[in-house]
């Protein structure tokens, strides 16, 4: 059974890459939006851009994974083809995991392009191990958050609208453009309730140096967030098929 599920996850991810990665909503929200933001910050002040880089990479992870989830989940919910996957000898969690990994992989491609491009242009030398430790759980966490919100609606545009609420709240509160430590105490507490704060923090350690334990703690917190998102997502999807 485990073999059936693993095989299904693998082929669902492959199929989603072929069918959905070039859909307009994935390109506009998952590629164009973060790229435009990055360029805007770079052109405004190229000298301080390196400071902003961890936050902008975090934002890229957030937007690319969640935009991809809206596409891989909601196109199928709308057309009824998600049911097609559930008619195969595959468990519902395996189908959803396939969808989450599809979104995470899209995010990984975008993050790799943005990080590599920025590193080359700016001559930055991030710690690759730290980057891997923080980027992988972040991709999974935000893909899981995307899945949780996307399974609760049917249409892609509804999903993108719903996703914009946590996206923009996190962009402004989690240290993407303004350090969490410089915010009022009350907002800091709120910031630490959001996963993007830990992604930004972990990425900052990766770019500017820091202890591996700090990175590991951020990574573990993100794993915790991913579990918090993924279980209700299973439940919501199961409820759709009761």
């Amino acid at each position, binding site marked *: *059974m485990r073999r*059936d599920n693993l*095989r*299904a996850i693998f*082929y*669902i991810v492959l*199929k989603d890459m*072929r*069918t*959905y990665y070039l859909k307009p909503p994935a390109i506009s929200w998952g590629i164009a939006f973060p790229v435009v933001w990055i360029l805007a910050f770079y052109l405004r002040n190229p000298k301080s851009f390196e400071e902003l880089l961890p936050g902008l990479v975090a934002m890229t992870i957030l937007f690319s994974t969640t935009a991809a989830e809206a596409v891989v989940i909601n196109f199928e919910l709308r*057309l*009824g*083809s998600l*049911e*097609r*996957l*559930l*008619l*195969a*000898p*595959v*468990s519902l969690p395996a189908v959803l995991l396939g969808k989450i990994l599809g979104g995470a992989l899209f995010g990984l491609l975008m993050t790799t392009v943005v990080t590599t491009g920025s590193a080359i242009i700016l001559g930055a030398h991030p710690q690759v191990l730290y980057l891997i430790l923080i980027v992988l759980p972040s991709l999974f966490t935000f893909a899981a958050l995307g899945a949780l919100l996307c399974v609760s609606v049917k249409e892609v545009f509804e999903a993108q609208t719903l996703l914009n609420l946590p996206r923009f709240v996190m962009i402004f509160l989690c240290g993407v453009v303004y350090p969490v430590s410089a915010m009022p105490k009350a907002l800091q507490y709120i910031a630490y309730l959001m996963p993007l704060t830990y992604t930004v923090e972990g990425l900052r350690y990766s770019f500017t140096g820091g202890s591996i334990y700090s990175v590991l703690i951020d990574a573990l917190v993100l794993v915790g967030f991913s579990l918090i998102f993924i279980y209700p997502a299973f439940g919501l999807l199961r409820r759709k*098929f*009761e």
Partner: protein
Amino acid sequence: MNNQKAIQVSGLTKYYGETLAVDHISFEVEKGEIFGFLGPNGAGKTTTIRTITGLSKPTSGEVSVLGLEVSSKILEIKKHIGVVPEISNLYDELSAFDNLLFMAQLFGVPRSQRRKRVEALLKMFGLFERKNSLFRTLSRGMKRSLTIASALVHEPQILFLDEPTAGLDVLAAHSLRNLIHNLREQGITIFLTTHYLEEADFLCDRVAILLRGKILKVGTPDSLKAVAEEESIIEFSFKKGDYQFVKDLSQRLPELKVVPVEETKIRIYGGIPSFVFQSVLEFSKEKGLEVLSVNSIKPTLEDAFIKITGLSPTVMRVEKEKRTNASG
């Protein structure tokens, strides 16, 4: 597994919130037969298929497929069944070949056999020449054929077909019915839902008639027709007609069933033929309607359906086609 029934359903009940969709239905499907579910929209046909195939959980009742309980062995059951939903929902962005290949991968068809099976199915359904065409570019009939082919890629023992020919033109529907018939020859058990009575008559070994979540009757098409044979059926054709005329005639002959078949055609069920004949002629004279022909009808499954459900199949068909056109 060999001596088991293909499908056994006992006391199946399904509520969606407060709405009762399926009401304590029980039936069995033998291996190798084509079993049809006939009924109007909302009768519970699709809900029953969804419950048997594990897409919906029953509120109560027991369902087993090939001797395995759906509640506990659904993943094992899915390896042996193929399901064709009412909507052809393959992937627009993939070619005919890639859609079938993906289904073969998903169902765990051994790598060495995948391409061979996909090509064989494309040939069987007359789609080989279009194997590289994207799904969205195929005609409605081709899409339907490919959707059925995709449910056969893992060589299932049972095939579930939800309204297989809905929305197809006459030629495409005819060729698809022949294909379904041939699948039975290959030993596949087929469970289909349809609102086309002639389709059920042509394809099915046994038919269950459903109305408002309940099975009203199960039997072979011939045994169901025999129900209608117990009373006379006379068909009148008029030069022109309207529904008010049918209403007035029903009031004039309250003990008989007056059913509009087409705009200018009615059937009258029951009564003594000479009395019916005389009454309708008198009535049409009063209303100034010209009778073009009068025929005594040999009962069809449609007549049996009318007698058992009290519904007009024309109304049912129009309602269904509206839905099919709306969905694409």
